[in-house]
């Protein structure tokens, strides 16, 4: 049993890849390999997206490089398409780990005809119904109270599903974050709040965000356990999340899990040049050297499990390239999708506006 409210982040493996403490591995070789592959796929997805961003194929992207331990560890500990996820915008590794196809993700980033969100949303804001991966809102922390509501519905309906709600460190300052946790505590709803603490919210560091020693301690105030986890240790994240999810399914109520990690890339492409004004290269390099993928590879090697990292990378690159080609071939949606899905039907005043644009387009 993992303990809540530890002073140090919970770890399973050290930087050198060796086990910390005594525990037995409850993952199959196959599961370990998939976990590793998904981390690499997420990293490659970032690299490719940054490239196509430079080519002007998409206009916005926020890398999750450095955070794969948190996102993939979490993804592999929930039941895809069964449990519900209220994610935030930097969760591509979570989506990939759950099994969402890279092609679906790319269709959204490129706004092609097969984009499930119909090219209405800013790139990199996914929403995938068949994975219960709820549409991402840019507005920080406004997924938190809705996630509590989803968990209350699961409780009401008597399902064995749980809800996972992710967010950054910055999000924990919003009033809605506190409102959502408080209500979940009162309702004892089956929800896991997962803070992907990458230590920066654009240019504001952790100390500028909160005077708390960490995020996990805030759980105290809402009557739920708070786990402080090394987010660059994929096995620690997986282990804590699995255990908490299990207890939640048994009716133990909500929990907060803080995964301490780091954003290696810029906040988004819009921040790429400004970054040097607020954080030092040394700090970035230090955290780059604590790469969660390398650490996991060291562990796999120590366990005698060899992975062909180069081949996995190459396959991941092909996967993304093929998905780009395939989704681009579907073209882009017409102007008229703009007028749909505002409501269930198209009310008369919007229909008139659509006719107005049609006349313009046909002129």
């Amino acid at each position, binding site marked *: 049993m993992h303990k809540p409210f530890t002073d140090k982040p919970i770890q399973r493996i050290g930087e050198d890849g060796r086990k910390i403490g005594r525990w037995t591995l409850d993952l199959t070789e196959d599961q370990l390999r998939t976990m590793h592959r998904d981390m690499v796929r997420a990293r490659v997805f970032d690299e490719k997206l940054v490239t196509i961003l430079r080519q002007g194929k998409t*206009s*916005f992207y926020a890398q999750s490089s450095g955070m794969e331990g948190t996102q993939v560890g979490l993804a592999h500990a929930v039941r895809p398409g069964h449990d519900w996820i209220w994610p935030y915008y930097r969760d591509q590794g979570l989506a990939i780990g759950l099994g969402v196809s890279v092609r679906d993700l790319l269709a959204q980033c490129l*706004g092609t005809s097969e984009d499930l969100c119909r*090219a*209405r*949303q*800013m*790139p990199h*804001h996914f929403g995938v119904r068949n994975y219960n991966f709820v549409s991402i*809102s*840019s*507005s*920080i*922390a*406004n997924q938190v109270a809705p996630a509590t509501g989803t968990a209350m519905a699961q409780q009401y309906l008597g399902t064995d599903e749980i809800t996972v709600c992710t967010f950054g460190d*910055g*999000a924990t*300052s*919003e*009033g*809605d974050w506190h409102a959502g946790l408080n209500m979940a505590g009162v309702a004892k709803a089956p929800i896991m709040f997962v803070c992907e603490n990458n230590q920066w*919210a*654009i*240019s*504001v560091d952790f100390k*500028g*965000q*909160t005077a708390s020693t960490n995020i996990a301690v805030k759980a105290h105030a809402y009557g739920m356990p708070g786990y402080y986890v090394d987010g660059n240790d994929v096995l620690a994240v997986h282990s804590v999340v699995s255990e908490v999810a299990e207890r939640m399914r048994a009716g133990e109520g909500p929990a907060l899990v803080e995964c301490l990690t780091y954003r290696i890339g810029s906040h988004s492409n*819009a*921040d790429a040049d*400004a970054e040097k*004004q*607020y954080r030092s290269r040394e700090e970035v390099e230090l955290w780059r050297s604590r790469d969660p993928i390398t650490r996991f590879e060291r562990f796999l090697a120590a366990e005698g499990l060899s992975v062909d990292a180069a081949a996995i990378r190459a396959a991941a690159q092909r996967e993304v390239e093929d998905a780009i080609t395939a989704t681009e071939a579907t073209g*882009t*949606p017409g*102007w008229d*999708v*703009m*007028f749909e899905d*505002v409501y269930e039907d198209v009310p008369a*005043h*919007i229909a008139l*506006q659509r006719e107005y*644009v049609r006349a*313009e*387009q046909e002129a």
Partner: protein
Amino acid sequence: MTALQDKETAVSTSATLSLNLIQAINLAMREEMRLDERVVLFGEDVGARGGVFLATEGLQAEFGRRRVFDTPLSEASIVGAAVGMAVRGLRPIAEIQFADYMGPGFDQIVSQAAKIRYRSGGQFTAPLVIRTPSGGGVRGGHHHSQSPEAYYAHTPGLKVVMPSTPYDAKGLLKAAVRSDDPVIFFEPKRIYRAFKEDVPEGDYVVELGRAAVRREGADLTIVGYGGVMPDALKVADALKAEGVSVEVVDLRSIVPWDRETVLNSVAKTGRALLVSEAPRTANFMGEVAYTIQEELFDALLAPVSQVAGFDTPYPYAQDKVYLPGPNRMLRAAAKLLGY
């Protein structure tokens, strides 16, 4: 009211700078902070980062962290703290990173800032400025493109301003800082860097509540504000080449709005085209249209017409179709002129 607020004051200093809109905003804050110790500036990423659009660039370096600081990521805290500071005698300028993110601070804006003077019988006031970039045209999808001015215009107690030129941006922001009422200062981000103009380096204000006549004309009045103004001027120029004389009125202030300037203009031209990029339904221009028809029914030669955004959330890929550009304005103008 200070003498400065009574009228646009000519400036004693001779120096002028060639500035774009965001540089003018930066200069306005710099000058107000130099003039008045009570002015403090805060928001998300406004310190070392200089704001995500760089509106506050260099201000923390000049005034220090005591007067220019980053806040935790919470718009309710930003606006709420601004209210409390203003009540206690400071002149806070609060930056909300995008107008689309005013939501978490909405209650503080409409329940505290807007009403504290009224509900306290004038004993307490909240002289604060909320600066925020708004409007579309930057491929930002619905969370980085909205034009929410009507929500705030609909709330008595708030002044609502949106400049469209660097000169006005500086003068209006300075007037906003000196205003004893809370001012929501929308910055049309798509024209932050669109063009430069000469801006006096010294002190002047542009009075809140006064429109500007950008072009004089006799056949048609175009009324607008903010990001659509450059297109409105293009339309006026295009029509001029065809022998049509268009008067262009830039509201600059939405609350209070300059009825007199608008009504005088439409009384003269008999035709009014109201342009904005906010969604059509409950658009502030509906109020302008209502006033024109009520006051000038006999003088009108054509129905009052609007070009606005559509009644959909701001779309991402269809951004260009959504935004009312010069062509849409030209067609609407042609229709009015055909009556």
